[in-house]
């Protein structure tokens, strides 16, 4: 009897979930802003992934005689940087590290934070107190200050940047995951699963996870834009990757002195950071409103 009941519950959940996600997808595709943003992001990502095969100039090959050419120079549509390297090629190649720094910390924080948050929310009691009080400590620091402090103490480098950004994004994810889990925990279907003999791990994995992942995911996507800005900011301070590696934040830093010679070329890497950041923000907003509509 209990097995049948469990089956019914599971089937009901799965069917509802499938219908729900199809609806969300349909609403998202119907939103022109989200579609355009997704398109721009896909284009930049594809450029970053396939950069070596696009027939672009060598992003490391400089030349002293063609430094800081303006936009629209023949052969260099976006000009050249302070060492005479092709800007177009460096901007496309730069997406590799910059997107990595923007996406990996949020991905890691999403996985770790969701796990901790669901455990804290579902188990409750002392464990909840222990996890949430540690999280509170991180809220006593302005996030960007903490990231710079950790990065600064560990020393420059891409791994340290990713590590420090992951650390600052875990606490907010844990808070969101904990609060949605706490609200789901008291619902009837969780009681039903418990009554039918499911263990805590099964309940968390099957019944809780499916219902809390959506909101946490949307929250995490809203962090990507912040992470892009902070990550490039760390590189801008010289705490991320090292020259001559192409990376948007670092390029912005090394081109700073060039603003008196060729200002608009110097501003280009920032255009990339801004574009990616605003697209992720708009896409996240689109997803939020596509998922909030429930009938």
């Amino acid at each position: 009897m209990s097995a049948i009941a469990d089956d019914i519950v599971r089937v009901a959940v799965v069917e509802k979930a499938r219908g729900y996600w199809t609806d969300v997808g349909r609403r998202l595709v119907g939103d022109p802003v989200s579609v355009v943003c997704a398109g721009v992001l896909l284009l930049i990502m594809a450029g970053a992934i396939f950069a070596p095969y696009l027939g672009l100039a060598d992003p490391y090959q400089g030349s002293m005689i063609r430094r800081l050419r303006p936009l629209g120079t023949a052969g260099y549509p976006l000009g050249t940087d302070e060492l005479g390297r092709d800007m177009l090629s460096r901007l496309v190649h730069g997406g590799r590290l910059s997107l990595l720094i923007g996406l990996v910390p949020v991905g890691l924080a999403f996985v770790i934070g969701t796990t901790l948050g669901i455990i804290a929310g579902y188990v409750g009691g002392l464990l909840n107190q222990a996890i949430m009080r540690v999280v509170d400590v991180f809220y006593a620091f302005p996030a960007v200050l903490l990231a710079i402090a950790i990065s600064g103490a560990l020393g420059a480098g891409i791994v340290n940047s990713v590590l420090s950004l992951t650390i600052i994004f875990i606490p907010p994810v844990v808070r969101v995951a904990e609060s949605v889990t706490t609200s789901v925990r008291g619902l009837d279907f969780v009681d039903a699963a418990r009554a039918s003999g499911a263990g805590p791990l099964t309940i968390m994995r099957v019944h809780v996870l499916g219902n809390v992942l959506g909101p946490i995911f949307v929250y995490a996507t809203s962090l990507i834009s912040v992470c892009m800005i902070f990550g490039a900011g760390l590189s801008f301070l010289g705490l991320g990757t090292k020259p001559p590696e192409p990376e948007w934040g670092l390029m912005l830093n090394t081109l700073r002195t060039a603003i008196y010679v060729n200002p608009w070329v110097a501003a280009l890497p920032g255009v990339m950071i801004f574009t990616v950041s605003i697209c992720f923000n708009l896409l996240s907003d689109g997803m939020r409103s596509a998922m909030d509509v429930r009938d």
Partner: protein
Amino acid sequence: MLAYVAKRLVLVAPVVLAVALVCFLLVHIAPGDPLVSVLPPDASAELAEQMRRAYGFDRPLPVQFAMWVWNALHGNLGTSIATGRSVVEEVSRAVGNTLRLACVAAFLGFVFGLLFGFLAGYFRGGVIDRLVTTIAITGVSMPHYWLGMVLVIIFSVQLGWLPAVGAGPGGWAWDWEHVTHMILPAVTMSVIPMGLVTRTVRALVGDLLSQEFVLALRAKGLSKVRIFVHVAKNAAPTILAVLGLQLGYLFGGSILIETVFSWPGTGFLLNSAIFQRDLPLLQGTILVLALFFVLLNLVVDILQAAIDPRIKRS
């Protein structure tokens, strides 16, 4: 009210201790011997041992932490390795510049954020709303250090209207020359709080306007201005919390802006501490900034309770 303040003060003590612990551990997660930057590379093992004892690095970690907290409580955060001056002296010289800049930026950001937010919340779905939403999302997506560069390009390099770097000659004064130095960094810094405050206030006002008490007030025949006062009153605690948080972020997060504009504040100090591997200075600056942030949160909590009696009871 006094009981609530006392309770909040008691609760803040463990947070302060934890913040101190994190700042203390920063030096110990740093790779390599913390003495490397003090000792000459050819120092003998004997000298290294002597220095280690002098700095207390030979003691167990908990003892070192207790010593550090004890010294910090007595206003001693150690000595900057790079300059040889005391950390407290360095930080107190810089902190005024950061506070001034952050407060002006916060003022700009909050005034425009509140104005835009209320406008968009009231005229939801209209042209104003769409315009404001666009400004807000641009504000929160902007890499502000880049915006700073672009503003320098336009107003300093191309037009030559405003100075590009520094806080002006000599100490600070509220005269025209110093104020012109502050315009660009303050405007740059105000963009992010402006965007966030706009978004929060817009959502909040939209929510409140759709609630039943507004309908009841309308049915009662209250004028639009009086209804606005009611809505603003209900929005105040949440808005206050957001403003406090944003002001705190400006204090602590100004390092990027200060670097772009070579503004002689704590962010600039932090930047040089990182690159000279001046760990006592790094530790001290971060401790001071984090304590400011904790204090600000405490003040906001208490103000919130003063405005909204429901908070005290919970």
